[in-house]
């Protein structure tokens, strides 16, 4: 039973204002607008990169020029054409001669910004035991716990530093999972990537803490092009957390990151994301375009890669964290919660490529749409002829709040081996007036009721998040669907 009163209640709950909107005033070292070979050279020079990397960037740029009119159009998203000559491709916080070596050397204003976000570095260091590699305006400015990780031979640093200090590793693996010309946005990223994180876990080492990066976009009209590479050598384990939130802006901001994961024999990588970038206002103004390419490769037998994502932000999300199951017995997992509200658009899912025998994959996707938003699950399960006994289980659930939003499920299943078993389940439901009334008749306010129902809906995925992340994510779900009721 849908009545005007209850619709009002739902509307009020789902029209929560973005709570983390603010802008930090900082001097910036910025390349001029637009993109050409000079800009690519400028970026590379600013970072004192070796010749081979500059060449790699320039080649990517040439490839990108060739596909300039081929930005992907198949997703269920719509936006005005992006003028790539009207964007800035490099900006960095002004620093002293060198990057800061401790928190004391970090711009106090930056630290204050993290305070506002509720993620004070100092407290997190101590309380959560999390080493934080903070990416702020394209440059890593604080890396903690490095010494401790160093003792185990673990490398956790910015991509720029990795290029300087560990060129062989970077050269070997960069672009090995997501080739430079993989797709339009990945190609753009390859040409102009600013910075990001690099992780290497040596053979047999179990990383003793969750590695964590907080991304943040701060400069107006600055495209942010992160590049992250994680390599887990044979028999190692690492859990990596990525989370972000962004300031209030009127201009659309493009974010085209690339994340590459490589898991060798018996290695396991667990990659968790809580994404809360500015989604735009109620009329869809402002907000981040998040066009991200994330892919992992299980290169050794029994390797395992697990993606967990909680996506609540961005005006548009275009993102398919995928796994190449290249070796026998390897495992790929994808657990996702995607929340869209107001005029947000999300087209997200995964691709599981079964390329070897006895490979297994699991996909659990929970899409929540409210307001006038559109939320699409798009997923590919491909079983190659060689992948005997491959197994996949896929479950896609959509939850609708209100009657003006859309939830869509678009599975692609390509099986070329008869012994494979692929299962797909999908459901669509609404938060019913009955459920809301039942909660309210027990004394719960409408906001609490919606939050409870939504968290229940997402439970299977939320359970996959590391403990210290789960609390934040649960809060985010509430915040992104919260409103001014009562």
């Amino acid at each position, binding site marked *: 039973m849908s009545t005007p*009163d209850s619709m009002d209640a739902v509307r009020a709950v789902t029209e929560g204002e973005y709570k983390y909107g603010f802008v930090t005033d900082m001097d910036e070292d910025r390349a001029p607008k637009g993109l050409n070979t000079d800009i690519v050279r400028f970026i590379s020079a600013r970072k004192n990169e070796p010749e081979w990397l500059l060449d790699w960037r320039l080649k990517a740029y040439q490839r990108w020029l060739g596909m300039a009119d081929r930005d992907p159009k198949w997703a269920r998203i719509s936006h005005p054409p992006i003028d790539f000559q009207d964007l800035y491709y490099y900006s960095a916080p002004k620093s002293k001669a060198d990057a800061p070596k401790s928190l004391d050397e970090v711009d106090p204003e930056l630290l204050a910004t993290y305070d506002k976000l509720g993620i004070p570095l100092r407290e997190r260091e101590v309380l959560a035991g999390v080493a934080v590699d903070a990416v702020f305006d394209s440059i890593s400015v604080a890396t903690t716990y490095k010494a401790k990780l160093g003792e185990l031979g673990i490398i956790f640093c910015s991509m720029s530093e990795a290029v300087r200090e560990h060129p062989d590793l970077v050269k070997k693996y960069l672009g090995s999972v997501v080739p430079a010309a993989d797709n339009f946005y990945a190609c753009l990223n390859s040409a102009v990537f600013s910075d990001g994180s690099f992780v290497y876990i040596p053979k047999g080492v179990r990383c003793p803490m969750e590695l964590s990066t907080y991304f943040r976009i701060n400069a107006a009209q600055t495209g942010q092009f992160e590049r992250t590479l994680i390599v887990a050598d044979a028999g190692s384990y690492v859990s990596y957390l990525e989370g972000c939130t962004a300031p209030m802006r009127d201009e659309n901001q493009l974010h085209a990151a690339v994340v590459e994961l490589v898991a060798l024999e018996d290695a396991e990588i667990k990659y968790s994301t809580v994404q809360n970038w500015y989604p735009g206002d109620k009329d869809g103004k402002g907000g981040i375009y998040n066009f991200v390419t994330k892919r992992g490769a299980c290169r050794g037998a029994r390797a395992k890669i697990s993606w967990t994502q909680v996506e609540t932000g961005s005006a548009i999300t275009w993102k398919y964290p995928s796994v190449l199951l290249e070796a026998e017995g390897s495992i790929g997992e994808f657990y996702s919660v995607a929340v869209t509200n107001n005029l947000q658009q999300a087209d997200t899912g995964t691709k599981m490529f079964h390329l070897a025998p006895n490979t297994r994959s699991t996909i659990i996707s929970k899409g929540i749409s409210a307001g006038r938003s559109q939320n699409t699950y798009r997923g590919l399960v491909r079983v190659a002829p060689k992948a005997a006994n491959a197994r996949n289980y896929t479950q896609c659930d959509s939850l609708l709040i209100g009657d003006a939003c859309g939830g869509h499920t678009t599975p692609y299943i390509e099986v070329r081996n008869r012994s494979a078993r692929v299962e797909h389940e999908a459901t669509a439901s609404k938060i019913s007036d009955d459920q809301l009334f039942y909660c309210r008749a*027990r004394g719960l306010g409408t906001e609490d009721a919606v939050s*409870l129902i939504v*968290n229940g809906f997402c439970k299977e995925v939320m359970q996959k998040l590391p403990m210290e992340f789960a609390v934040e994510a649960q809060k985010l779900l509430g915040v992104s669907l919260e409103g001014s009721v009562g």
Partner: protein
Amino acid sequence: MTNILEIRNLHATVHGKEILKGVDLVLPAGEIHAIMGPNGSGKSTLSYVLAGRDGYEVTAGEILYKGQDLAVMEADERARAGIFLAFQYPVEIPGVANSVFLKAAVNAGRKARGEPELDAMDFLKKSKALLKTLDMDEKFLNRPVNVGFSGGEKKRNEIFHMAMIEPSLAILDETDSGLDIDALKVVSAGVNALRNENRSMLVITHYQRLLEHIVPDRIHVLAGGRIVSSGGKELALELEQNGYAGLTGDKSAA
């Protein structure tokens, strides 16, 4: 003796259609009153109006709860103020453990009354004791709210909620429907255990059967949106013998 509930000349519409056409009813503290009536007489509408469900609009008259006008209170405020509705059709909430849901509900009420919230230990202790009296397994705490519960389990779960929430006014909407005789006895015993001088109940039922187990202080017959007859518990027997037609004068209502 004070009155918990006073309903005066209550008119209410559902989606523009008038269902209640002048209900008068007084429920003193500590008493149990039964509302009986044929299908379509407005019994469930009355329970929803009292609980404050959206779409159920009071067009005339008033409802006083502990002397306070309910018109200005939202459904959740009413619940926190001590009004409890045991649903005829309890609602499923997938993924939300019964204990999580109930703890949130109990503490919402305690917070509103300025009482300290129950911590996990106290909550568990109290829950387990009450589940035992309702012949329910402790597993009910971890199962998602009403999901996969049988009809009888759902009704028992409602009474379990009621026992935990400790309302001043409980409205039991057709709690007997769908229960076999054994389950009916267990549920009735659970309800009777909650009887006390500070708690009033409105027991809505179609059949006299329930009232053999939960013996009311008074019985009201609702028909055509009005209370057409009130009396002691013997009224139920009379209805059992003569049907509702005898009271309402409407043969089709039998």
